[in-house]
């Protein structure tokens, strides 16, 4: 039996975020450590170009993240906010089950065709990181113009935390995000191999095969 788990907007947002993160990572690493150095041609605009792409990709990323947050309140049951914030007792209990699976204490894969509660919690952490990343990015962008609207919104950050520390946090979260991608691809592959549910292809097609035991959890 196959069911539609990831609706079209969820998939679109997923891949938008993926592409934006790759572009942001490449340009971000360049901005942090410009390994390509111009030879001195008067028309060169390397750093300027990388920064422009970084800022443009950042806006795409920010809009996609906000869109996903909105979808968490209007989407289907697998995309809703309670998949990430374990408010129900059952979800909290299943966090333990998921842990048991990953710690070799049980063979059955975590329950549910959607995000298992542990994975949901991981995405909660990821989105918290995204929030910090977006905030520090806006604040750093505002430095160029302390008279701007952006500065009036985010400039107060630098009354609390020195500017280099904000840059440092912004840089570390990029590395943590790359670490997350490693985890994300591995876990999806692992579960796909275990369940043969097509979870890997589901983020393209939206559809997943579910086990008979999971049928009750489908719509």
């Amino acid at each position, binding site marked *: 039996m196959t069911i539609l788990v990831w609706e079209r907007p969820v998939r679109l947002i997923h891949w938008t975020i993926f592409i934006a993160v790759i572009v942001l990572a490449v340009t971000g690493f360049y901005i*942090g*450590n*410009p390994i*390509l*150095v*111009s030879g*001195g041609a008067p028309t*060169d*605009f*390397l*750093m*300027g170009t*990388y920064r422009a792409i970084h800022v443009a990709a950042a806006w795409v990323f920010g809009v996609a993240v906000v869109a996903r947050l909105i979808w968490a309140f209007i989407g289907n049951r697998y995309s809703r906010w309670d998949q990430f914030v374990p408010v129900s007792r059952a979800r909290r209990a299943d966090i333990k089950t998921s842990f048991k699976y*990953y710690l*070799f204490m049980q*063979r*059955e*894969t975590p329950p549910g065709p959607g995000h298992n509660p542990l994975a949901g919690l991981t995405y909660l952490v990821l989105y918290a990181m995204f929030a910090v990343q977006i905030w520090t990015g806006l604040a750093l962008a505002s*430095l*160029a113009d*302390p*008279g701007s609207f952006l500065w009036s919104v985010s*400039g*107060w950050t*630098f*009354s609390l935390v*020195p*500017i*280099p*520390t904000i*840059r*440092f946090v912004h*840089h*570390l979260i*990029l*590395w*943590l995000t*790359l*670490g997350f991608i*490693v*985890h994300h691809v*591995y*876990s999806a592959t*692992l579960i796909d191999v*275990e*369940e*043969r549910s097509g979870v890997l292809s589901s983020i393209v097609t939206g559809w997943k095969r579910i*086990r*008979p*035991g*999971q049928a009750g959890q489908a719509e």
Partner: protein
Amino acid sequence: MATLLERLEANGISRRSFLTYCASLTTMLALPASLTPQIANALSKVDKPSIIWREFQDCAGNTESFLRSRNPGVADLILDLLSVDYHETIMAAAGRQAEAASDAAAKKGGYILVVEGSVPLKDDGVYCTIAGKTAKQHLEELSKGAAAIVNVGTCSSYGGIPAANPNPTGAVGVPSLVSNVPIVNLPGCPANADNITATFVHYLTFGSLPARDQLGRPLFAYGERIHDSCERRAHFDAGQFALAFGDEGHRKGWCLYKLGCKGPNTFNNCPAIRWNGGTSWPVGAGHGCVGCSEPEFWDAMGPLYQHLPNVSGFGVEATADQFGVALVGATALAFAAHGVAKYAQHRITAEPAAQPVAAGQPTEED
């Protein structure tokens, strides 16, 4: 007492050069040129406001900077307008006489309190004691009658070098101790003499401190980042960087970003007004900005020759990128090991799986 103009004449300084100086101050304060006459007028009849200049945990570097203001002839006379009633480094009096001068000025009230250096709080503030009183006691007593407090230098503004880790004396800046008096911070290590002079002139002209930002710094001096007014900025945008001191890029005057310049992290007007009477400034001389006028200088700006701070707390210091590569690599290794282990788990438990251990659904697909 002779007016300023009479004194200018006595010193052989023309009214023209006085007005030129007033015009340059007007520009520095980012005021419209039409206000120059008002500034000149106010300065010509100023009535010697009293100044108490207190040094706490400092190196007297701001005093040194202040004594080298841009236009010696006129500026010195303007500074003569200020009645500096107490200043350890330049006053003739010493001991009880000096304290008596401070007490007399304090009794009159309405003075400008200039503070240089941080205030230690640890162990009841014993690490800075002057005339039997701690810096904190002096500050508390003197801030009561002060019309305004001018913090010169990073130490009195934010704590500065004495407050750097591990901050053995518990040093803090003046704004964390005083709140009921208007305060202006002129951070910098040292603060630029021209910014100090301009702040005084603003006070003498308008009777108030200049407009300040969220960190108490006057906007005329700290309203823009060094990076955004830097003469090497075009090289940054082009991707033209000096990679080592003395290399081709460095000799061509390219951007010092890769040598750890903190210009992108620092609000100050060094590129515009420069130092030592407009002679030069650090980046102009070929060395990156060290961010001396920002909060938590020294700690937050280190390492000086690196763009980002290091990751510490793992026994060894590593750059953020070394840490990142290790993190992603370790994650990949851990998950690879996990995958192998999962495979092994299925192989090892394959036979006993048929036994009645499993509670619930079957896990194996056909």
